[in-house]
């Protein structure tokens, strides 16, 4: 493989029953389409067992995860990793994957989100100015969902990850949940929407190293997906 190639590993989560289409490269320039050098997709169950591996044609513009993974999920959630290799002359910063997500049959609007870059999000040539293994998400004052959770995945090959999930409530109260994840394992951590009558304000995930994390919100009765977003690097 050419030494000019850089690498980026991004991750999301797939569930059967959802249309989930990933843009390999987000771009608007019809005159000069940009392509990745290669893209390998892998999917892992909650225990970290490999369920699927697919080498994707980088000339494809989108991936339909439901088509690729429905037969592998067996009704379970899968963590999906995208191992992209790209030429830095074509992508001066890094390629981003974006995705469109909608629960089949749901009357709720589809969601569009940036796929979480977990490995290689800060190439050496760019440098880093802040820790990015502390991540946060601030909820709207008027909640859009009635059941919140964070999805946490460990993309390591060998190392177990220990993470703390903190929820903060109006008035300053804080609750802590701890999770331990083996390599490629993942979990959904439910977030109490209220504590002593106070509304959930924000959530933080802290770990020794960066994990794949998303905040998810569902309608309490229908289960419709109303929020699916990556968390943000913690600045303070």
């Amino acid at each position, binding site marked *: 493989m050419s030494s000019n190639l850089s*690498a*980026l590993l991004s991750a999301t989560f797939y569930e059967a029953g959802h249309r989930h289409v990933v843009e390999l490269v987000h771009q608007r320039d019809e005159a000069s389409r940009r392509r990745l050098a290669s893209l390998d997709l892998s999917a892992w169950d909650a225990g970290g067992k490999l369920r699927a591996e697919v080498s994707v044609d980088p000339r494809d513009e989108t991936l339909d995860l439901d088509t690729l993974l429905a037969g592998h999920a067996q009704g379970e959630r899968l963590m999906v990793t995208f191992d992209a290799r790209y030429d830095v002359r074509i992508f001066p910063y890094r390629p981003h994957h974006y995705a469109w997500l909608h629960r089949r049959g749901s009357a709720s609007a589809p969601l569009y989100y940036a796929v979480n870059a977990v490995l290689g999000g800060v*190439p*050496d040539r760019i440098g*880093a100015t802040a820790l990015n293994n502390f991540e946060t998400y601030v909820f709207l004052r008027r909640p859009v969902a009635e059941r919140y959770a964070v999805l946490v995945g460990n993309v*390591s*090959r*060998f190392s177990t990850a220990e993470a703390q999930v903190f929820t903060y409530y109006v008035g300053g109260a804080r609750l802590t949940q701890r999770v331990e994840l083996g390599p*490629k394992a993942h979990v959904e951590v439910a977030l109490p929407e209220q504590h002593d009558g106070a509304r959930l304000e924000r959530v933080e995930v802290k770990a020794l190293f*960066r994990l794949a994390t998303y905040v998810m919100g569902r309608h309490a009765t229908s289960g419709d997906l109303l929020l699916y977003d990556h968390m943000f690097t913690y600045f303070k």
Partner: protein
Amino acid sequence: MSVTTPMPRDGDLLCYCTDLTVGELRLACEDGRWPLADKIRTGKLCTGCVGDLLYLLRRFGAVAALP
């Protein structure tokens, strides 16, 4: 459910920020050359590989040389 930890493979990319492979790390550890001058920021940028880096440094016997 038990999941077997895979064997490190030399060709696998370890650090996606500095392009360090498992094989480069293993050889550097065996030769007492870790940390390599051009890989000094391994594990410090996106931080995502830190867990695996520490695991492999222990496995390759170079924990004492951790920067």
